[in-house]
């Protein structure tokens, strides 16, 4: 989940913070200090996150495009210049553009807006933007909600009281609700100082950037893992029975399925599953990583040498072309598989299915999947030539069952021609002739299209008169029999018009006798 840091570079950010007995700080310095802390945290504990830095005042600029290089981000942040007034709407539009250009509109994103809470005046101010919200034309819509799923974190270099004095707090709250409630406003507690800015960013880190640690189980085999990016909790069925769903920290493998059988299933998100050393101290946020770098790397080497289940699993999944079905929580499943990138580096990846008991129609209910050893005979066959998947649906779709549609004239013409073609090849084509005839008859009866039945009867009678001398005598009998049956059906009330009744070939001496000769 990429992050965009949206940094207020307006003049008001340079307001000094008055504090006795300390150096002169600007709000901007506090903001930089907080962001430095965030970047440091990410560089150590969340290194795979892509982050971009956008600075804004009345204009906006992409200072650092999406990167995992936190040094560059830090450097650019340190050298940020001061500009004029705050104009948030344009900046949010900028974030929207930057995100979509890089990741498309389906990728979830976190926006960290750092501002002092003075949101501009007059045109371009947030107040003005919000007041004119309903008077927009389609091409000038307010950028929130973003087209992609997003969380908007607003870091105020100000305390709550200060913001409540003006309408800044209200405006910011309105911003969050415009983003469909996804996000939060953080304010500083107590005096504006380094300590309180640290505690504010500490809260953000805890909430949005703490690594997700879990244990992957396969029976008694297990491995500690980090799942990146963090799987976010979600709510299932918002109308009738809202059930909050979160991925559990115990990921349990249920069993294995061939890649061909799981067949590129739709997933809601993908995550790397990275084995981690069980040394718990390393995980603590931002501490203990300064002095003993050497020790850590040697610990890493050690961890590299002791066998880990993830590596074994990954290797076998890759070689066998299989996936592991994994349970993430009650009625929520995902799959583990080996994913190779362009550089031939491969990794253990986990994809999450839509929460629910039967996420994939071709697998059926996951709770109904059991071990092959329970089946009467091996469903994969003794030589692995079969598969119990995909599950067949109870009813066939229209395109799989030769339906009759006459909405276009060509559909009707084709069906009539098919019958006539077979009529000319009687008695060889007796079976196909009657099959097509019955198909047409059924549809005509259902559509109340009796005129067609009479028409086709007429055509068959004409064919009968036009039979060449060389024709088999059976042909004439069958044609007039079929025509007569169609006429009977077109009268409606008789037994002949029953939908399930089929016209059967007339039994003639020729047909049976002819076969024998």
């Amino acid at each position, binding site marked *: 989940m990429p992050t965009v840091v949206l940094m207020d570079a307006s003049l008001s950010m340079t307001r000094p913070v008055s504090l006795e007995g300390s150096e002169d700080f600007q709000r901007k310095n506090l903001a930089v200090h907080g962001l430095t802390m965030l970047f440091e945290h990410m560089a150590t504990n969340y290194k795979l996150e892509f982050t971009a830095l956008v600075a804004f005042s009345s204009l906006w600029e992409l200072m650092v495009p999406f990167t995992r290089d936190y040094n560059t981000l830090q450097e650019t942040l340190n050298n940020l210049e001061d500009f004029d007034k705050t104009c948030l709407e344009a900046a949010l539009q900028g974030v929207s553009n930057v995100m979509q250009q890089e990741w498309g509109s389906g990728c979830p994103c976190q926006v960290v807006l750092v501002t002092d809470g003075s949101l501009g005046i007059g045109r371009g101010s947030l107040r003005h933007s919000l007041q004119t919200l309903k008077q927009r034309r389609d091409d000038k819509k307010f950028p929130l909600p973003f087209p992609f799923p997003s969380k908007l974190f607003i870091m105020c270099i100000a305390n709550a009281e200060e913001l409540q004095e003006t309408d800044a707090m209200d405006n910011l709250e309105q911003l969050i609700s415009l983003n469909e409630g996804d996000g939060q406003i953080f304010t500083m507690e107590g005096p504006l100082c380094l300590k309180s800015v640290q505690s504010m960013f500490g809260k953000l880190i805890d909430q949005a950037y703490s690594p997700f640690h879990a244990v992957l189980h396969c029976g008694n085999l297990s491995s500690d893992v980090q799942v990146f990016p963090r799987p976010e909790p979600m709510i299932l069925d918002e109308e009738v029975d809202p059930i909050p769903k979160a991925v559990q920290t115990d990921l349990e493998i249920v*069993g294995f399925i061939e890649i061909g059988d799981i067949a590129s299933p739709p997933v809601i998100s993908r995550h790397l599953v990275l084995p981690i050393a069980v040394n718990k101290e390393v995980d603590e946020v931002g501490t203990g990583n300064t002095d003993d770098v050497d020790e850590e790397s040697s610990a890493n080497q050690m961890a590299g040498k002791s066998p880990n289940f993830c590596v074994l699993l*990954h290797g076998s999944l890759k070689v066998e072309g299989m996936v592991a079905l994994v349970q993430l929580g009650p009625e929520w499943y995902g799959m583990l598989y080996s994913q190779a990138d362009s550089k031939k580096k491969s990794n253990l990846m986990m994809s999450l299915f839509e929460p629910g008991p039967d996420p994939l129609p071709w697998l059926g209910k996951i709770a109904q999947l059991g071990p092959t050893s329970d089946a009467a005979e091996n469903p994969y066959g003794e030589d692995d030539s079969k598969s119990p998947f995909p599950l067949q649906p109870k009813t066939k779709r229209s395109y799989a069952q030769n339906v009759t549609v006459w909405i276009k004239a060509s559909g009707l013409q084709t069906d009539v021609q098919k019958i006539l073609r077979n009529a000319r090849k009687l008695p060889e084509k007796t079976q196909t002739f009657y099959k097509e005839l019955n198909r047409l008859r059924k549809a005509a009866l259902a559509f109340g299209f009796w005129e067609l039945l009479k028409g086709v009867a*007429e055509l068959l009678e004409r064919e009968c008169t036009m039979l060449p001398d060389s024709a088999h005598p059976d042909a004439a009998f069958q044609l007039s029999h079929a025509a007569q049956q169609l006429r009977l059906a077109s009268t409606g009330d008789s037994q002949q018009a029953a939908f399930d009744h089929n016209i059967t070939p007339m039994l003639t001496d020729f047909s049976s006798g002819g076969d024998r000769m």
Partner: protein
Amino acid sequence: MKMFSVSHKTVFVVDHCPYMAESSRQQVECDILTKSRGQGVIPLAPISKSLWTCAVECSMEYCRILYDVYPAGKLVNYIVSDSEFHSLNTWRQEEQSTHELMSALAAVGPPNPQEDPECCSILHGLVAAVESLCSITEYQHESRTTLMETAERVANRGRIICLTNAKSDTHVRMLEDCVQETIQEQNKLAAGSDRLMPIQQCELVLVHVYPQGDDTLVSDRSKKEISSVLISEVHSVRAGRHLASKLNMLVQHHFDLASTTITNIPMKEEQHANTSANYDVELLHHRDAHIEFIKSGDLHMAGSTSRDSGLKETVTLKWCTPRTNSVGMDNNELHYCTGAFRMSPVDVNSRPSSCLTNFLLNGRSVLLEQPRKSGSKVISHMLSSHGGEIFLHVLNSTRSTLEDPPSISEGCGGRVTDYRITDFGEFMRENRLTPFPESSSRDSAGKTPSERAKAQLERHTRYWPMIISQTTIFNMQAVVPLANLIVKESLTEEDVLTCQKTVYNLVDMERKNDPLPISTVGSRGKGPKRDEQYRIMWNELETLVKTHVNTSERHQRVLECISACRSKPAEEEDRKKRGRKREDKEDKAEKNGKDEEKSWQDSDRLKWAQDKEDQTESEIIKDSPDSPEPLNKKPRLTEEVQVPEKSKGPVSLLSMWTSRITTANSRKHQEFAGRITSVNNKAELYQNLKDENGMDTHENGKATR
């Protein structure tokens, strides 16, 4: 779309009054004469469909598309109205199919033009439609019963699509008023009933159908709120293809569908089999398959064009001919797919459509490309069938946030090179899943199939060393039969025999002094001596079997067999082993540091963690150099166990184990014949072995020579 939106229930009300028997005046030429046969033949006069036929076939087409895209949960009740109403099906899921409806329609037949028009009215059908909307569907019922106290959250909404021939705008108003009044009446009734629900929202779609060439007497009107419950719209359409395209638009609109046209499909010509031309096929599916285009405002860039109807748009995607010709090859790739949507071809029985669908139904997948004027090609979708259903998969075509991750070889355990990859592959094949019917869903212990699958994984991994150098027995072909059987939930007599044979075979190997595939990694010189190798092998085998000993009495017998066949008396052996093992481990610890130690303990813990009940015992008998010799601690079950000949020295591991199990088992079964006939509680076991192999006999698990 929400489960109980307006689209959950659709009532079709089709007019069956005499005037619907009138001709649509759209003529179909069904007698196409070829040139060679044309001479002297009078062609059949063109025929035309009645208004009724047009209404029925277009409504059937609506249902066909609906059922293709939503096989469950979106229901249709089809009502025909003349002098009374005829409901052709119910809300039950089993009655939701076009075949079912066609059969019922055939029974109704076309309208009777002779019937008295005064008795006939569409009103009968509309009243019945409102009543039908009040009756509860099985989905609503199920939802309400599972929710219990929050049952009121289950909504009751629905839509009525009425195909009729109205006389005037006033007539239309009258129909709307009638529906509105009926809703009010029915809602009152429904409030007091369990099987009925009041209608919260109803959409009335009135389609006035009139013959070609006539002037319409009814004007179109877009959605209008008649009351807080009823919203009504009026469409005035000529019968024939206009009606068809109107209903096609309505089904898209009502069920959030969108259209994709697959272009450039190569297809053999009917007449000239060796040439091929390119065709287009239009598909309908849920509009979320276009979500990326919609959100990014790219709908036009993605090649969308307006169709003849001029109202709905279609997105054009280009067919990419599959690379390989063999079925299945292209299925072994796992695409990053963000959605899969059922589809229905617009023109289902046209030749291009059926060629495409048959190709897919035969198991092939087709990638679809966004046509772009310039730049690289972008694959955005894939068509693929699963079990006779074709899905349009949405593939991710944007940059991945997970690019360039650290390779797995750089992480924990990444440097280890001798993982048992092939063995684990075999393990995965054995633990593949298969679907079980819901009727036989739970076994005797009340476990679902997936719980049984997990239980099997647990059994199969009780002892499963991850690397080759950690194991001896799994590197030996000779052990395979036993290793495969012992993990089973239950053993047959034959299985036990096979296990015993395996053990005898090992004994034989030991006697012949056959070499064992012991890893020499981490040991100095040539590695352990031959008898030491066998000792390690036997220990490991025992470890494996012990983890399953509580599964059944037969598993127990396999352990007994191993214990009996091991070359050395258990007690002496044990003592030696402890001494040596300590040395071994010290060596290892020096080399591999703390981690190794830890993993040893881990694997020990793992072996015993299965049975919580036994944990106290397992502490005592834990075979670890760190735990003190458990000499002074008495087993818990002392009062029931006959402690064998204490005076002869410390209690051995084996004897403790055996007596414990014996006690446990003796509660469950009849006393063994041997024990009943025993003298002083001593009976000679495995006499046969003695005869066959000249082995020592064991009594009560304690060796005597």
